[in-house]
């Protein structure tokens, strides 16, 4: 089982990004995904900066992958994507069919990101013919679907699944951070930089529900599949994705590494995945969740 660091979903200051990734290059990870996947307006690091950072980190011996934007709107988004695709030697995570097409045009192998809609073996077969070598499973793809992929008899790519972090649930043209601050998106002032772990959204009963991250909506709860590693492995998952957070990411990585190396499932500190069991993503399964999540590891508050 391999460990990957998923692309940073939030908007952090340039110096903080460099500091984070230079430290991450020393953590026990197999793969690091780099790039802006949420909002094309975020420019603390431009595409060239991300590629330069990727080249620097590649010297650590980790596999480095460049992740593309999930929602492209303007021509300039496509130009940036072309630059990413033509980086010369690093594989790209395609988070949209535009990226698949640009990679396919150039006969470059790629990784399918979790925002591609791949729900059956025929879609898998076509994308593999296009050059897809690995698929990061979309959040809805659980144990049963993975088994159906295997039962189809098709040659399969590697499978990676989101094992730690808030689940990416939806994308929009609208920026919800700007909306919450009563700002127009075209004049947003890049205020999502003030919410380096997202902006909490609660129900009117003050129950934590979702997280606003610019144009993206995430779950409030952190998914934590560390206790399920043996089951994930048996189901055919080869890579576990951990999403970056501000607070002590090094411990998050270390906990997963220890769980893999020791074979001992740790106590769950986030939330189990309803999706993995074929249920609603937010569903709590009887007896399988931690009664008292250790919030300290999840967020600094």
């Amino acid at each position: 089982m391999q460990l990957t660091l998923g692309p940073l979903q939030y908007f952090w200051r340039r110096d903080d990004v460099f500091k984070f990734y230079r430290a991450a290059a020393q953590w026990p990870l197999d793969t690091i995904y780099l790039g802006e996947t949420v909002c094309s307006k975020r420019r603390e690091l431009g595409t060239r900066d991300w590629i330069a950072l990727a080249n620097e980190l590649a010297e650590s011996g980790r596999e480095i992958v460049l992740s593309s934007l999930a929602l492209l709107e303007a021509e300039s988004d496509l130009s940036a994507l072309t630059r990413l695709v033509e980086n010369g030697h690093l594989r790209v995570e395609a988070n949209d069919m535009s990226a698949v097409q640009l990679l396919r045009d150039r006969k470059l192998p790629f990784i399918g990101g979790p925002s591609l809609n791949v729900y059956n073996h025929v879609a898998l077969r076509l994308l593999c013919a296009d050059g897809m070598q690995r698929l990061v499973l979309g959040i809805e793809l659980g144990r049963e679907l993975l088994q159906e992929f295997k039962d189809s008899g098709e040659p399969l790519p590697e499978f990676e699944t989101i094992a730690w972090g808030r689940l990416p649930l939806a994308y929009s043209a609208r920026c919800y951070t700007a909306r919450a601050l009563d700002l127009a998106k075209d004049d947003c002032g890049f205020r999502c930089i003030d919410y380096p772990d997202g902006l909490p959204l609660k129900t009117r009963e003050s129950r934590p529900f979702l997280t606003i991250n610019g144009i993206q909506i995430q779950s409030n709860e952190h998914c934590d599949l560390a206790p399920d590693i043996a089951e994930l492995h048996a189901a055919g998952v080869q890579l576990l994705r951990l999403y970056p957070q501000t607070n002590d990411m090094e411990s998050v990585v270390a906990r997963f590494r220890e769980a893999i190396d020791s074979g001992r499932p740790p106590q769950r500190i986030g939330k189990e995945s309803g999706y993995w069991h074929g249920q609603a993503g937010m569903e709590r399964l009887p007896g399988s969740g931690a009664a008292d999540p250790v919030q300290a590891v999840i967020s600094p508050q």
Partner: protein
Amino acid sequence: MDLICPAGNLPALKTAVDHGASAVYVGFRDQTNARAFAGLNFSEDDLRQGIGYAHARQRKVYIALNTYPSPAHIGAWQKAVDRAADLDVDAIICADLGVLDYATRQYPNLPRHLSVQASATTHAALRYYRERFGIARAVMPRVLSLQQIERLCERQVVPIEVFAFGSLCIMVEGRCQLSSYVTGVSPNRHGVCSPAKFVRWDEEPGGVRSVHLNDVLIDRYQAHEPAGYPTVCKGRYEVGGEIFHALEEPTSLNTLQLLPMLKAAGVAALKIEGRQRGLAYVGTVTRVWRQAIDQLESHPGAATNPAWQRELDAHAEGHQTTLGPYHRSWH
């Protein structure tokens, strides 16, 4: 410019045809389409009649097969493609690569439209679907501004269809798991958003009504407040200490005033949302848009009739309308 209108049953199809639809889009009575609601959609017999009715009047019928099947159930979607071909529909509207692949191989002469559920927003993405599946048209997600629609049309990869009127998905279609996260039922897989069986209304003291979706409080209404259907994106939530429609208000898209610009951009077809809506909606909305398109073609530059706007507002969700993503200030 074609006018593509919704129908959830045979009377609605006939109404849309009678009021000036160029084409009517429909779905089978199962999970193969993105409006898989109880009591909605067509039996094969109704569909045969409806297609006969439309074709006798030189109008078209499209079938939406725009959900994403799992490996174990893809056979049902393939059979739906077979049935559509057998019924002699004028096009199928698909999103899934597997469904498109099957249709392309088995029925190369049956036109394939790319569904909004495929989330294709660039000429590069459209090229993928054209090269692989020879799509004849693509429906754009409700995220692009007017200027971005113009740029896309200029590329002429495939003819472009855009949403003109109806309820507004605030998220990129095909990229929203809010319903799935809360209920396990997803637009992508099951063709349903925020299904009614998970909805619970409660009366509280003072006439306050609260509405939950699978035990998540979506909104609470004072006695005098009009209540809306609790889709997750249209609830009121607390963000930064304030309670408001943090994602979207219950409102409808109405692009009537953009019609000349959409035509000038080269948009091939305008789509009206609302297969779940009643006959009055289908009839009125189809008639108003037909009149507006006809006037634009016969008297370019003529002002739109203010009565049209009033009629459309009366049928809008929450009785308010927006230019939506076509106008930058909405973003």
